[in-house]
């Protein structure tokens, strides 16, 4: 089984699934969950670009032979932090929307016209 192709496939499936959820669901919380699924997919894709099957962590010692690329991991760490910030921001806006409208359904929020 080719590990690389599997990881790419899973990442792309997560990204597309996340976007589909964000685009089709009517509940704001579900939309945000969709965004999070998409972010997970993107992070997996980033990690996969630097992954070598059987590679170890890039820490310098005598025994290492095959190491994975450390840069995507650093990028993903940053991306995770940003993702958490966006989610927190989104949820805090959603709390306010719920206070105003008593509903999380985007159809019920009258001024929501795309």
């Amino acid at each position, binding site marked *: 089984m080719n590990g690389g192709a599997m990881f790419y496939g899973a990442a792309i499936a997560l990204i597309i699934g996340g976007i589909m959820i964000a685009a089709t669901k009517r509940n704001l919380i579900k939309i945000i969950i969709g965004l999070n699924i998409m972010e997970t997919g993107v992070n997996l894709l*980033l990690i996969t670009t630097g992954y070598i099957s059987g590679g170890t962590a890039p820490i310098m010692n005598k025994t290492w032979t095959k190491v994975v690329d450390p840069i995507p991991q650093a990028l993903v760490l940053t*991306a995770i932090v940003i993702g958490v910030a966006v989610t927190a921001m989104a949820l805090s806006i959603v709390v*306010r929307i719920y206070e*105003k409208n008593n509903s999380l359904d985007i159809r019920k*929020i009258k001024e929501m016209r795309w």
Partner: protein
Amino acid sequence: MVNPILIIAISLFGAFFIALISPFVKRTGKIIAFLTIGFDLYIGASLALKSLRTPVIAYTAGFKPPFSINLVVEPFSAVFLLIVLTIGFLISLYYLAHPGEEPEDKFFTLLILNLMGASGIIMTGDLFNLFVFFEITAISSYALVSIRKQKASLEGGIKYLIISSIGSSLFLVAIALLYGQTGTLNIADIAAKLPFINKSVALVAFLLILVAFFVESEIFPFNGWAPDAYQGAGEGISALLAGVISKAGLYALIRLTFTLLDLPLRSKLLIVFGIMTFLIAELSALKQKRVKRMLAYSSIGQMGLVVAIFGIGTIPALKAAIFQGVNHAVSKVALFLLVGMVIKNLGIYKLDDYKGLGRKNPLLGLLFSLAILNLLGFPLFAGFWSKLSILLSTGKQGLYLLLSLILTGAIVEVYYYVRFMKILYERNEEASHLEIHLLEAIPIIAMAAFIIIIGVNPGLITPLFEKASEAIFMKFSYINLVIGG
């Protein structure tokens, strides 16, 4: 030596200094914001001046590019840096006399961070760093848009957040693809290695980048968030969206597409999507009843026009596009700030409520008319020269269909703006008198002065645009500049 990193460092310091002292000393946010952004502008302006002779590159971590994150200020980014910081400075000046949104200290922290992110987008030479600054700008603008906690602002904020975070995730996918192919994150280095990578992967990456920055620069069909965000946000923030956030998105769009994308495809995509945005937005502006929403659609339309002209890609066209971008930023920011003054005094939102306001308040009417006439390209204003050069550069390339579409859109634009001016100057005994605070009016008067001075003598500023368009046109000089030296 002036170091571009200073802009980021000072902004971060200023932003968190407000948060630090706000529990002890109330209401200092606007002053600290003004000083911080003023200092940023000083650094930015001296960098821009310097970059016209020799471009400035700053490395971090002691390695030369492509092995470290670098900040590049060359003429093209210098022009955008100047636009963003000047507009930001004028907005902070406006807020000295205008009440900020509550909670005020947090509002000004966010304002500084937003400008920091926008200048970072413009200066950085690293793709992932661009993503980080992009997110800083985006997250702070979601908060700035929805800070009013009214229905409309919350709605604008959440829409902006959903669409923009999908866009930025797609940008991250593009980064992953490009990094996987080239093994580098430096924009110039990627551009240099581009001819040797898998063509279809590169194409997918470009399309994703295009979508991501179309969202931020308000290009159809990715601009569903924009009218609501403009309408819901405070007036100063609408001005920020028009003059800073969308301009930073535009810079990133042009920088990445011009450095990374092949010419024929790029032109087609930018022209088609740009002109579509222009026409649709102008037609939507026509039927708006609320002033801010009308201005929002006009803003979207102008961004579309600028992107379409950038798409033509010849040096005169690039020059025209930059000039039009500057004019749009100046006019639209002035208009939003004026609307903010009206709303603060009278609390009116509808177009019809403006009846007779200009006749009763001569200064207000004059400033409104100047900004509008500049946007329409009335002769002897700065906007005339940019509209003229747009028409000339389009005609020169033989793009007559594009030319006629631009003219159609422009006529629609003239129609609804002239209607607005007519309402302003209609006879109405009941029109109220406005208390105009001088400090509030200074930034708008400064912009009006700019419009007139450039209108009389465009030669004062066109050499700058000339250099900028040459800098973006020659992509190899950018590559050489960053990784060759």
